[in-house]
């Protein structure tokens, strides 16, 4: 017998073969599901045109004069004379080629409008995401390690404030203090060039990051507290391992596993959910565009933005799940 409780040892494949194949299979499966979802979402988005009050021609005309020529041009352009499902098919086919029609506000192709604003939104979202994860995880870990101390109590109360302050309040507050009173940072605009942009988007990014930071912090602290109580931490200390190794490759590595999934959700919300921040700081991003288009009933733009939101949520979710697989061997290899 000895070591050979044979049946108990299940995996005997070479080290590097484990995981890779199963991850590829998993991602492929997820991509299929994602495609199916995308079809359903795009159909719903297409239906927006018909769900909006009034008839589609009027919607698509906007402020332009209604003449037989414009009506027939729009009918041809949007295939409104074709059967409903064919209309959808043709619309979706063009959307697949990034042709979403023209904006009624600017008469420019929707894709151009989006392309002009997406980099700003991406920049702002990733900036805020960086701030949120770094401060959230950093402070969360600090609070957990110093559980019950003043630091911990301060951080925990800050979480409550951060979670319950809406962006337009914290945004206005930041503007007042840092832009108007102290003149440290600019109050609006997006700047040119990387560093100027970083400079201009700092206040919006902070305002945008506050609730997400609080959210991540709360979860990171809870996860860390759970991990610090584990036997394997005691056992690592009992073996005389260095405190840094225990903190990083034992406590943090394990505590981050649940936090990673959550960060994916936060990222998508930061990129496309920055409506209030972009309005408060007059940043010309996707959120800004969405509000303008909603006011102008610019249906083509709304459709495009909605699809963009859906795709980014799906993509970041997939990313988070794959990360989860990579960081947790128990999920990757199937716990027995």
């Amino acid at each position, binding site marked *: *017998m*000895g*070591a*050979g*409780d044979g049946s*108990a*040892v*299940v*995996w*005997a494949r*070479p*080290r590097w073969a484990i995981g890779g194949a199963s991850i590829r299979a998993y991602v492929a499966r997820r991509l299929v599901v994602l495609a199916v979802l995308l079809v359903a979402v795009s159909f719903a988005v297409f239906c927006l045109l018909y769900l909006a009050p009034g008839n589609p021609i009027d919607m698509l005309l906007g402020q332009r004069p209604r003449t037989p020529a414009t009506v027939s041009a729009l009918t041809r352009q949007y295939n409104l004379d074709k059967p409903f499902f064919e209309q959808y098919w043709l619309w979706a086919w063009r959307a697949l080629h990034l042709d979403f029609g023209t904006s009624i506000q600017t008469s420019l192709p929707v894709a151009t409008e989006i392309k002009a604003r997406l980099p700003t939104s991406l920049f702002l979202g990733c900036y805020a995401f960086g701030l949120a994860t770094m401060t959230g995880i950093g402070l969360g870990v600090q609070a957990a390690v110093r*559980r019950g101390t003043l630091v911990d109590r301060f951080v925990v109360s800050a979480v409550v404030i951060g979670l319950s302050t809406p962006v337009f309040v914290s945004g206005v507050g930041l503007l007042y203090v840092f832009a108007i009173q102290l003149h440290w940072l600019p109050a609006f605009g997006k700047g040119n060039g990387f560093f100027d942009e970083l400079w201009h988007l700092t206040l919006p990014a902070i305002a945008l990051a506050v609730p997400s930071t609080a959210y991540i912090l709360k979860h990171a602290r809870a996860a860390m507290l759970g991990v610090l109580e*584990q*036997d*394997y931490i*005691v*056992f*690592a*200390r*009992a*073996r*005389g*391992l*260095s*405190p840094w*190794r225990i903190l990083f*490759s*034992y406590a943090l*590595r*394990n505590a981050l*596993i649940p936090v990673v999934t959550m960060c994916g959700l936060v990222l998508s919300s930061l990129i496309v959910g920055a409506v209030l921040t972009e309005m408060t700081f007059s940043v010309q991003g996707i959120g800004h565009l969405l509000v303008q288009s909603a006011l102008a009933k610019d249906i083509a733009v709304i459709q495009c933005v909605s699809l963009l939101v859906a795709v980014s949520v799906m993509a970041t979710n997939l990313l988070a799940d794959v990360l989860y697989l990579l*960081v*947790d*061997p*128990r999920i990757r*290899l199937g*716990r*027995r």
Partner: protein
Amino acid sequence: MSASAAVTANPQTMTSPLLSVKRLRIERRTAEGLQTLVSGVELTVQPGETIGIVGESGSGKSITTRAITGLLPPGLTATGEIRYAGRSLLGLRERDWRTVRGTELGLILQDPFTMLNPIMRCERILGESLRNGGTSWFARREEAIRRLAEVGIHDASVIDRYPFQLSGGMRQRVAIAAALARDPSLLIADEPSTALDVTTQREILALLRRIQVARGMSLILITHDLRVAFAMCDRIYVMYAGSLVEVAPADKLDAEPLHPYSNALLLSEPPVDRRVAELVAIPGSVPSPGEVANKCVFVPRCQWAQSACHQGSPLLREVMPGRLSACIRVDEIRGQMTALRRQSAEAVFRPADTTPRNQILQAHGIQKVFGGQRHPVVALDNVFLEVREGESVGLVGESGSGKTTLSRVLVGLEHATAGNVTVGGVNVADWRKLNRKDLATIRRTVQVVFQDPYSTLNPMRSIGWTLAEAITTHKPDTRQVDREVEGLLEAVGLPTSYAQRRPAALSGGMRQRVAIARALAARPRVLICDEPVSALDVSVQAQILNLLNRLRAEREIAYLFITHDLSIVRQVTERIYVMHRGRVVESGTTDDVLNHPQDPYTVRLLASAPTAERDWLDGTR
């Protein structure tokens, strides 16, 4: 072993000890002030010596070793003196501890399933523990493989596995290898085999002893099982409620305990080789150290307690050369304790009449397959089992043997893939097709008592409410529910006032009594007891076993007793089924099977049951 035994025989002439602990006191800061967890602990470990610290839960044995390794949980402080090789350990700074932990003192914990970092491969776990961190990757890997071989893992591929891919026994071996990586001179093993199966437990203990001898290392073994301590240790420290009550060489303690608690603990261990008339249980349950401050800690449960025992906490004193006891009356009561042991050994169990009776529970050709068609896992394979009225049947096996699955099939918590189950004359091949009346019949016939008394009672409801609910569920027209509740509490030996209490106010043993009372409310003809005492302390275990035996005599209930512990089966059953990997490998009367086992698995299981003999651990790798 003989070398260390020779040293022990003469404690006065020993050289300076490797580890000495004096006046150790461990306290917890609470809102109400300081709460004492451990007090007055004195112990020494010689180079190459194995000592055992034996005690039940709450005795302070684990906390003591945490204090020795400087790993007390936050909020706990230790005072006194701890010296290792002349160096004072108490008050060391965290960075200084790193020169002690791992290199001088090693520690392994109880649960191999939580002790290893789940996201590290064994190679890293071992590699980071090895002292020569500077050498090449290849050299370190080779060294790690050598270390695994030392703990009996000769399959080098284990090094590339994660802990969750290994069995409990393998994980414990890896943990031992990691704890020994920096070659400590003293290893502390805190219940290293308790979470493991019986057969694995024996292998791990044998491994520890082999390594200890081979390395000439000192070993502190923490255990609740006196028999394990007798088989492993040179000297034994018996702890109770935060204090040491007796210190003695293992063989002397086995021959004659010199403290009423050690004596009682020895008596409440059910023997595996014979059935006793009645186990000698210790009344009550283990107190917290605060409840027994300033008196002898065992006073509330001691049959020889006198007023003198209440006057201050007695100190350990040398009653014979090399033997210390904290009992102030030990000289007066020695004879009586010996008489008690002899009486228990001589009392013969008289078996009840064995006339064949009606069958009430039968399983026939049971097959249970889990998982899909691609990866079928056969949990039960053509299992036959029957229970007749009033008889007690044991179902023995280790984890993964299918015994719990079988019990779940019997009560309808799982559906058998194939085969027939008959309960009280009702065919229950498919539980989903049964009508309300048949279901009621079945529930009145079979009830279950589960292993963990802490999670089977609703914490928000009083005991009385829980019992009343059970009573009215089975007999909605019951008039005097309160009286029924009182009757049930009396039947399981609890004061009727306990009906007002919540489960949180009860000890584990009391909760298990309540769980039994709740099962009895339905007036079942068969009680399925799934490991009903394995979560309980030894001294309480005997109480529950005696209770179950008494209830059976009073109420003519049949038992299906599921357990991994052969000594328990010996005490409460007449017939047994031995299960291994989903099949019944052997069945028959308990005496026949345990005295003359036929199946090799039964032989191995029997050899794995701890006995106090030194040679118990011989013959394993």
